[in-house]
């Protein structure tokens, strides 16, 4: 019953996503693109969270992918479409190096080092100004991918979301699910049952960071320029985190719910409060952690469960 309902909702949402470009104008499409971008980031953040590791470095790997993409076009002469997978590979490689170093001490240490990543990458981009354009940023001479066609950019963002969704569902169905859940529940029990914790965590960190880099590439190619302040913006850490927490963590459905709710709300908030609208996300994070750590999806499932019991 419940599963059928979920399938119907998923099909409807998928159908809506496919027909949207035919129905909506440029502005709704842009809003939809933003929502899809943040949704994909929220899903990737949650994928790592399923192992019990919290990353505050989404903006860092996202921004790194953005710069890899635009510099790939400008300095290496890549075609714009090819620079996007290159961005994914670059962020994944960076995550491999960093993860190899910092995943040895997990928990708190990992989280706090990732908190510094966006700032560190930004300083590096600032300082290599001959290569990266420095604080002023850099503009792709060829301009926006697909000549800026609204539906083209929409499809590109949808592809980014599909990659994140696909990876997340694959994680739920494959051995990753068991390994990550075991690590989250009890590391000692997991390692004594033969789970190689370090390798699973490293693989998860690399995969999620690669997708974040891919999304960064899509983002930067959709605007045609990058500045350190725009691509390493705290928004890219904060919004996905708030979305996944509000919707419900440790699964694919929660982040989707949270992203739809907060994504639409954030477009409205940005117009209402151009400065400091992020305070809302800070407060959402505090309230969710204190009062409903399983998020809205967890709450809904809790409410649905007694009803199911009666039906049986």
């Amino acid at each position, binding site marked *: 019953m419940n599963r059928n309902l979920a399938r119907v909702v998923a099909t409807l949402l998928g159908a809506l996503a496919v027909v949207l470009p035919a129905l909506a104008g440029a502005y709704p499409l842009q809003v939809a693109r933003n929502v899809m971008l943040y949704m994909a980031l929220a899903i990737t953040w949650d994928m790592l969270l399923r192992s019990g*590791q919290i990353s505050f470095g989404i903006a860092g790997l996202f921004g790194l992918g953005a710069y890899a993409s635009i510099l790939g076009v400008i300095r290496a002469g890549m075609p714009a479409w090819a620079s996007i997978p290159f961005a994914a590979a670059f962020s994944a490689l960076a995550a491999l190096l960093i993860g190899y170093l910092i995943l040895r*001490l997990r928990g708190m240490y990992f989280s*706090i080092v990732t908190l510094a990543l966006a700032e560190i990458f930004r300083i590096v981009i600032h300082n290599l100004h001959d290569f990266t354009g420095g604080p002023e940023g850099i503009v792709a001479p060829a301009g926006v991918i697909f000549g800026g066609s609204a539906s083209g950019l929409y499809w590109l963002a949808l592809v980014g979301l599909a990659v994140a969704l696909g990876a997340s569902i694959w994680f739920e169905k494959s051995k990753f699910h068991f390994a990550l859940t075991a690590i989250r529940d009890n590391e000692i029990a997991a390692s004594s049952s033969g789970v190689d914790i370090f390798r699973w965590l490293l693989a998860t960190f690399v995969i999620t960071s690669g997708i974040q880099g891919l999304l960064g590439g899509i983002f930067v190619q959709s605007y045609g320029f990058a500045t350190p302040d725009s691509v390493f913006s705290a928004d890219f850490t904060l919004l996905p985190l708030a979305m996944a927490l509000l919707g419900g963590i440790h699964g694919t459905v929660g982040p989707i719910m949270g992203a739809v709710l907060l994504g639409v709300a954030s477009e409205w908030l940005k117009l209402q409060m151009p400065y400091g609208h992020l*305070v809302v*996300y*800070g407060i959402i994070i505090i309230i969710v*952690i204190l009062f409903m750590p399983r998020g809205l999806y967890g709450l809904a499932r809790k409410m649905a469960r007694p009803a199911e019991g009666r039906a049986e």
Partner: protein
Amino acid sequence: MAMKRRATILAALSAAATILILLWKPSVINNGIQQAGLYAAIAIPMGLVLGIVHIVNLAHGEFMMVAAYATYFACRATGMDPLLAVLPSAAVTAAFGWVVFKLTIKRALKAPELNQLILTFGIAIALTQAVNILFTSQTFKLQLDYVSASIDIGEDTFPVWSYVFVAFAILYAAGLKLFLTRTTIGKAALAVGQNPKGAAIVGIDVNRVYGLVFALALALVGAMGALFLTKQSIFPSVGSPYTMKSFCLVAVAGIGNIPGILGASLLLGISEQVLRGFRDTRAWADIVFFVLIIAVILGRSIKWRKS
């Protein structure tokens, strides 16, 4: 024995490095020590909270930022000198921190460690952005004559005002040492830090100790907020690098090792100033702490594997 020998070698090496830098560029040592004082005085309260309440407060620097803003507007309204505001700022920040602790962090004490991290991250964002809404991202600075005080030695001029940070850092470290070993509350706090369950069994009100220690740490941060304002300009995100650097210093020193924070700060402060001493490397000084924390994590993981 091996530990002792290694410590001696380390001390000798750092003394040699210091003398070399002193001969080459005395101002680097002068600035480095002052910078270290600022870092240490901000990191010590974080070390206290982490050591006893076992919480990484990611809103640490943000509380200092709020204290600095409060002091700035109080000083501008009354024409008071921020030095006079050090004690009031400490009291107000402690009260504010205690309320925030009761309302939020206390409820998450039993939650998994990572929930606490997300919670204090949320508090940090809420504080920064609330200040951003109220006062915009404009920078504020007080113009004070005495902060440009300096001493001339030979041909060089050495600014000396920031030694007040060094004095506070030493005061904090020594004061906390006395507090934790000589007073009843301090001993209770130390016991709670070592084993909350055992402390509760012998009749210590653990939750009250947590609240008190958090408020005490915030009083120290509040005093630093007022002091910080004498020298630096303030803006909403001014606190966040200090949160990161404080954690780095606490991690380098080892949790529960407050005097160690002084040494770690010296290392960070002087290394940053060495990089700032060259035109080409100046802009890289801000990533020293990151390199330091990665080195520490690697060092720890190697040590763990050996044992």
